[in-house]
């Protein structure tokens, strides 16, 4: 009986499917597929059509919803007609899989004031943190103990940034000065870089595929201008003035443009040879809090990826970084998302036009942090309304809300395979969210006070978090 039923269902019903890539281009012609085909079979078909040498994993989406069951169950559920061509979007997934962190492996004390920012180096081997006690500390990941304490700042260290080749660390403080550090020895490289009159809000390095070894970085400050500094000349080479109020965030894009978002509700696009303003993106009704680029993760990690390869010469690094960047970007232009105090975000394609491509509404409080996933498919936004929202990274359509925090969510961080999202909040917990199931994966309590900064290491092994309770916590699986 069961066999007969099975035979009857598999014989008659087929459905016409068209596989398309995330940008909408179809892969081959429409195919007649039997209805008992599920994601594994579709994966084989895609691998074959793309002539992949190794079997790469793919995820399939029909009208923005992931396909996890066989086609016939999906059709029965959704009551989709078999006469129309079914468009299935395939998305390449990361080959490696990151395990979610679920335990705090170390609580390292050392800072005497709140930890304001933590950051892993691009190769994931070093960890640095800046704090309100005016020091930058480097931590040893193998023994989970303090390594170096870098003193020299006169006021709180607000922001730290690793160069994409991992050779330099720059930190900006509340008094407006920037200091360069050597992560191997913990010593300061040269004197303080002064020029800004008020505190530093953000720092971004030039991508390594544009120049290796990394020399230039841009810093944004409350006094309204962004400055491009050269580390070998140890001075400010270009000053990007134009904003009337504080510049809250700055990003150096992969095509060589600098994007600055400011409290005067505008985003300005600058070119870097002369510091001229290219475009001004208007539209927000209140402060622009955060910017995110679709290629941000690749620019941050430079030439390093999950294989853990080291490079001997800067040229090799530059080529590898360029290859990674090209693969990430594809043919599409770079996308920029800005999160603002007016509770909305805008999706821009700054290379094409000065009008926004999409407006992302839904948050009920200001959006504090926006971050593209490492593969650029998703966009996550953290807001003071205690929720984290997930959006489609290409079109900007809303996908899901992650609720669970009981206080404003401050910062988010993606795992390197884009399957997990980490959020740190004022309620002193960190939460790991699963992108596939749109649910909470892990709850990481343990901090005694607000969590100001979180970072997931690029190799996916560890998560570091720091906050008002002055300790740095390392989380592992």
């Amino acid at each position: 009986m069961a066999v007969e039923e099975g035979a009857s269902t598999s014989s008659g019903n087929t459905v016409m499917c068209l596989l398309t890539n995330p940008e909408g281009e179809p892969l081959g012609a429409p195919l007649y597929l039997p209805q008992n085909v599920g994601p594994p079979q579709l994966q084989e078909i895609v691998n074959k059509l793309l002539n992949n040498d190794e079997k790469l994993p793919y995820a399939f989406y029909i009208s923005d919803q992931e396909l996890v069951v066989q086609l016939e169950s999906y059709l029965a559920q959704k009551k989709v007609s078999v006469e129309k061509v079914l468009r299935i979007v395939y998305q390449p997934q990361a080959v490696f899989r990151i395990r979610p962190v679920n335990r705090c492996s170390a609580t390292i004390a050392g800072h005497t004031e709140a930890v304001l920012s933590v950051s892993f180096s691009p190769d994931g081997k070093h960890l640095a943190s800046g704090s309100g006690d005016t020091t930058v500390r480097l931590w040893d990941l193998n023994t989970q103990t303090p390594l170096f304490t870098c003193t020299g700042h006169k006021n709180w260290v607000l922001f730290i940034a690793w160069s994409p080749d991992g050779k330099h660390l720059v930190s900006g403080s509340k008094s407006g000065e920037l200091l360069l550090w050597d992560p191997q020895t913990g010593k300061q490289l040269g004197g303080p870089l002064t020029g800004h009159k008020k505190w530093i809000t953000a720092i971004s390095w030039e991508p390594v595929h544009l120049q290796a070894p990394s020399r230039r970085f841009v810093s944004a400050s409350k006094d309204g201008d962004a400055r491009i500094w050269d580390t070998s000349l140890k001075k400010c080479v270009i000053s990007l003035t134009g904003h009337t109020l504080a510049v809250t965030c700055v990003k150096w894009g992969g095509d060589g443009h600098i994007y600055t978002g400011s409290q005067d509700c505008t985003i300005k696009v600058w070119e870097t040879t002369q510091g001229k303003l290219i475009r001004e993106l208007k539209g927000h009704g209140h402060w622009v809090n955060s910017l995110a680029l679709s290629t941000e993760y690749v620019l941050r990690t430079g030439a390093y990826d999950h294989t853990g390869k080291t490079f001997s010469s800067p040229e090799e690094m530059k080529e590898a970084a360029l290859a990674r960047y090209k693969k990430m970007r594809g043919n599409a232009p770079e996308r920029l998302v800005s999160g603002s105090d007016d509770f909305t975000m805008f999706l821009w394609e700054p290379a094409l036009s000065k009008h926004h491509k999409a407006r992302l509404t839904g948050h009920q409080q200001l959006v504090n942090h926006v971050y593209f996933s490492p593969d650029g498919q998703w966009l996550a936004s953290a807001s003071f309304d205690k929720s984290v929202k997930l959006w489609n990274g290409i079109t900007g359509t809303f996908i899901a809300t992650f609720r669970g925090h009981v206080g404003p969510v401050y910062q988010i961080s993606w795992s390197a395979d884009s399957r997990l999202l980490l959020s740190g909040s004022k309620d002193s917990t960190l939460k790991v969210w699963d992108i596939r199931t749109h649910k909470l994966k892990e709850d990481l309590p343990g901090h005694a006070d607000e969590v100001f900064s979180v970072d997931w290491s690029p190799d996916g092994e560890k998560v570091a978090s720091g906050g008002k309770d002055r300790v740095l916590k390392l989380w592992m699986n």
Partner: protein
Amino acid sequence: MAQGDYIQLHEKRYGKRLDHDERQRKRKAREVKKRSRVAQQALGLKGKRIAKQNYREKVQMKKTIAMHEESSTRRKIDDNVHDGAMPAYLLDRDPTTRAKVLSNTIKQKRKEKAGKWDVPLPKVRPVAEEEMFKVIRTGKRKTKQWKRMVTKVSFVGPSFTRKPPKYERFIRPTGLRFSKAHVTHPELKCTFNLDIIGVKKNPNGQMYTSLGVVIKGTIIEVNVSELGLVTPAGKVVWGKYAQVTNNPENDGCINAVLLV
């Protein structure tokens, strides 16, 4: 003081003295010494007055000097390292400290416990038991006095059944029982005749609340389904609180204002 202008007339006709300017100059030079001598030697009220005047002038002069000495060069940024370090995204924001949030929640809890609600009539006249109840004498010789009749308006509810008359202590006369109230919406200023669902709180005590006595200031719950109110979640609101604003036993009707 010269009366008349004969001095000026002479000056006009014959000119000034030849050493006039010299004398004026020397006189002015001596003014300084004279002023100083006077200031030092003057006594009494006059001395005080002069001292006060001089002090005022001195202060003014010092201020002008300080103002001129202010340089226009930029000063260094305030170097002191403050407590309460915050990341850059929180720096421009006004944080309500956790203490303030906690104190707000504690205050709210206290308010709830004390039962102090935000009502249109916060103070009502307290009604004494003698005014509220009339003693009913019962028994064969009318000596027993344990029954009481409520003299104010009451609400009993649709499914009310009296206790056996032999045992009921509180008598609520049917003439004073009401089931509808004239409820005014404070913003829309229109009045509706709505059913009473129940008596929520009588300010005189919870005994009267449980009896269902309605006097001025009582909070009652009314059926507002005919107003068509909807909660933000999409559910229909069918009961709301209202506070009684008249003395129903005098008027024969219950007038209330809706608590929005």
